[in-house]
């Protein structure tokens, strides 16, 4: 337990010590909120879909959690390059504890980032249906954060250095985000796109957040919760397995 805690604490300390990273990573969500939220707002309303800001905010929260958590997982590559990973790997503790501690730390940071975006969106005109929405919102934030931190860890366990990073950014993170229904409603999209969206785990995160925060859902709350929980569990196992195979 103390192992998990100290690894968690390390991630938190590193996060709060790099203010520039916190501020920097808020730039993108704010830009999306302002440019897309206000830019597409009138069209969205005219199409009879209501407020675009209300629709968009869950997607942008999911986005900031996605980015932060995958990066947290991928930080293992830095630890490997700066040598700190060796220190954790020669310690007499199970690889599972190390992986869980890191993942919870990364997920906490990602949730924190999502919470900041949530507060910013209140200034952009987002209206919460009521405080009861906060509990399911938190559950989905947690699931998204753990799922993608574990995914980042799994990927980083297989990478030697940051060479492949651009590849991951363009062929994993961006598609995960853009194909998740974070930006557009899924009702009535072409079948091909609808099928792709179904294979994107983030779709269920966005949809779950939307059902919690706004009250509308495409797949349904239960489907979102079930699929995300199962995937998170599976990725935690995969991440732990790949992490335990790291040789330096």
């Amino acid at each position, binding site marked *: 337990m*103390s*192992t998990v*805690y*100290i690894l968690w604490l*390390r991630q938190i*300390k*590193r996060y709060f*010590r*790099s203010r520039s990273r916190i501020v920097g990573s808020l730039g993108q969500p704010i830009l999306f909120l302002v440019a897309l939220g206000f830019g597409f707002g009138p069209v969205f309303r005219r199409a009879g879909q209501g407020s675009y800001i209300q629709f968009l905010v869950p997607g942008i929260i999911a986005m900031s959690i996605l980015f932060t958590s995958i990066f947290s997982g991928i930080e293992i590559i830095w630890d490997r390059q*700066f*040598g*700190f990973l*060796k*220190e*954790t*790997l*020669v*310690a*007499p*503790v199970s690889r599972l504890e190390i992986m869980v501690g890191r993942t919870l730390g990364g997920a906490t940071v990602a949730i924190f980032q999502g919470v900041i975006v949530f507060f910013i969106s209140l200034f952009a005109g987002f209206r919460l249906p009521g405080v009861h929405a906060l509990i399911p919102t938190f559950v989905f934030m947690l699931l998204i954060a753990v799922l993608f931190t574990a995914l980042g860890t799994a990927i980083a366990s297989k990478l030697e250095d940051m060479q492949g990073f651009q590849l991951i950014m363009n062929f994993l993170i961006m598609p995960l985000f853009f194909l998740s229904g974070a930006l557009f409603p899924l009702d009535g999209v072409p079948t091909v796109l609808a099928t792709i969206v179904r294979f994107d785990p983030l779709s269920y995160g966005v949809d779950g957040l939307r059902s919690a925060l706004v009250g509308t859902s495409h797949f349904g709350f239960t489907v979102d919760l079930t699929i995300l929980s199962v995937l998170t569990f599976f990725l935690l196992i995969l991440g732990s397995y790949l992490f335990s195979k790291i*040789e*330096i």
Partner: protein
Amino acid sequence: MDNNNHIIEVKNLTKRFSSFTAVDDISFNVEKGDIFAFLGPNGAGKTTTIKMLTTLLFPTEGKISLNGYNPMSQKDEARRSFGIVFQDPSLDDELTARENLEFHGVLYKVPGRLMNSRIEELMKFVELWERRDHLVKTFSGGMKRRLEIARGLLHHPKIFFLDEPTQGLDPQTRNHMWEYIENLNKKEHITVFFTTHYIEEAEKVARRVAIMDHGKIVAQGTPDGLKEKTGKQTLEDAFLSLTGHGIRDEEASGVDRMRQHRAMWRRGR
């Protein structure tokens, strides 16, 4: 395995990376309380051997016993038995000196109060106590090395591995460091296993030396014994006669080569 006095026993140890044999069928023993040096040029296989001894790499073949444990099957028992200073830096730069030690203490389950008193004692010992709450990224190379030594000792290991501990340090810091380590060996009876490619260090500090080249141990014994055996005055000459080449002519590692290029480039300008 066989002998109670041997804290490390290695038999027919081999490590292959695909077709390349980095460590080639080596055997040696280290006695309790000894200072043992692995001497050899860059690329000889010293670090690879240490990684196998310390559970970071799986041997391709061979047997290891470390403080009576098998590092392959009794990983955590083996891990608790040693402390290590790696060849390359391994601190978290974004944490303070004290936080780095606390992290280690928690992973090795050193109880809280004991941990605090040991951290203070060790940081005073390596003369970093005044800097305890500074971020490690503000430290010089020598300070980081000293902090790594303190960290490696925090859980009171039986064996202390040091992989090229003096690489990149100035002569004063180097001498100082060996004083610490010899002192530690004398007072706490910690077995010290270090690697170096500085012959003077092995000759001065180690009680037993194994000379490694191209993945093989070409000779082992006391420094005096090796000189006697080869009929040479210095360990350097003994090394030359055993391997047929000087230690520094050997092909440098990638990073060393880069450093040399950089140095030449600077001189050239």
